[in-house]
């Protein structure tokens, strides 16, 4: 009996409050739904300090999802150093660690996982808004895993940003694409 379908991904996305980790997770979740996959999203919730660390877990599968609670993720997106320290050790062997190197200035220690590095802050700055760094990371994640097409993620983003300024959407789309390009060749 296999654990799960071949599109199975369990991903922990973690960073400071304000880095947009919940939005990365929700956009991914929405996109998975539009691709008719099974998907769950759970946030860490509770009393938090300003500047504290927040994370969410997204499970995507072709089969109905068992546990939405994940202790051994296939992928981790670390947006800051505390997230790297907390979740690097949990990743399944052969799994993926995506680092936001505009904040993380140190190297992971594991050698049995795939590590990708994206300077999301710098790329977002070039696009013209530091706040789209999270979408740069999401674009990179889609490029790495291939679990969802950039089109459905873009569609999910349009839904999420419905009613906001069109420039904002355009900037987010450019961020997604720039993120995907940034991991090419890694």
């Amino acid at each position: 009996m296999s654990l799960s379908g071949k599109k199975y991904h369990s991903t922990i996305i973690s960073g400071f409050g304000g880095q947009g980790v919940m939005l990365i997770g929700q956009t991914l979740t929405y996109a998975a739904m539009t691709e008719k996959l099974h998907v769950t999203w759970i946030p860490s919730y509770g009393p938090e300090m300003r500047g504290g660390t927040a994370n969410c877990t997204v499970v995507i599968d072709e089969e109905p999802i068992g546990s939405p609670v994940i202790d051994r993720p296939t992928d981790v997106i670390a947006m800051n150093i505390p997230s790297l320290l907390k979740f690097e050790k949990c990743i399944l062997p052969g799994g993926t660690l995506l680092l936001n190197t505009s904040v993380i200035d140190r190297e992971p220690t594991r050698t049995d996982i795939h590590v990708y590095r994206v300077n999301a802050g710098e790329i977002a700055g070039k696009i013209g808004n530091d706040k789209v760094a999270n979408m740069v990371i999401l674009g990179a994640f889609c490029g790495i895993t291939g679990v969802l097409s950039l089109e459905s993620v873009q569609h999910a983003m349009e839904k999420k940003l419905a009613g906001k300024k069109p420039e904002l959407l355009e900037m987010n789309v450019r961020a997604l694409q720039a993120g995907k390009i940034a991991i090419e060749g890694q």
Partner: protein
Amino acid sequence: MADKTLLKGTEAMAEAALRAGCQVYFGYPITPQSELIEYMAKRMPEIGRTFLQAESEVAAVNMIYGAACTGTRVMTSTSSPGFSLMMEGVSYIAGAVLPAVFINVVRGGPGLGDIQPAQSDYFQGTKGGGHGDYRLIVLSPATIQEAVNMMFDAFDLADRYLNPVLIIADGLLGQMMEPVELPDFLMPDRMPNHDSWALRGKGTRKKHSVTSFDLDPLKLEEMNLANFEKYRKIQQKEVRYEEYLMDDAEVAFVAYGTMGRILKTTIRMAREAGIKAGMIRPITLWPFPEKPIQEAAKKVKMVMSVEMSMGQMVEDVRLAVSGKVPTPFYGRTGGVVPTPTEVFEALKREWEAIV
């Protein structure tokens, strides 16, 4: 297939309750289900329903008592300490034989506890909680889709048996998001007819009376016996549970709600490691599915309960198994959610102890 919507558990339950015909909501906000009452506050006036935020849970439950006397579909939602505050009213509503729906999105306790997911209100929900001889029909969903469908079932059961129905969820189910298919709004002709007893203004009809008491002990006993005749029917007809990979199972897990869902991953891990595990997941916590557990105890080598508590449902599991096979327990408390791997390790320890 209809289009799916991505909703938080609390919001999905709220929308489903409205589609199931909930006309009136009284409540008081408390984490981790404040989004439910918030959703109701916004949505109910839009569709011509009545929402009222009470000054406390004690006030809310008595408003529910009043609305239930009119036979109107009424509900509230709360979390553990809030449900404790409602206990007096719940007992009155059960005693007065009235339909109402309660949701307890359980958090860590006792006392103020914390706001993380827990299952430590099982005793409170299934064994009384309030005073006197009464039962609640208690349902527990494992997924958001099941929670959505359960809202319809809950109102139907409450109306069919004139009894309060409690849905026990937990903070994890409340806070998570998952795509769901929302059933259509129930048409008014699908609503129950309570003309024979409801209090809606006497007019020219004969007098109706709704009460939870009689000072004559023999008459009160008669009322209670009639209620217990009803409970017996509920036990015969309304037991709901899911069997998961039980056909060839050597170990039967028993777990409900979120824990039952997490265990599906543990079971797959166990099977990959050569331990044939399966699960009986109670969907009704009362009436408790004791027969399938009794049957399983004849075939398996071990019946293991897993809960987000120090062990409450396990007492019902042990009654059902009745000493036929070992009945180990694993749980975490205070708002800690056991992970699939952690339960797998616990399973291995228990399994090695008996084989």
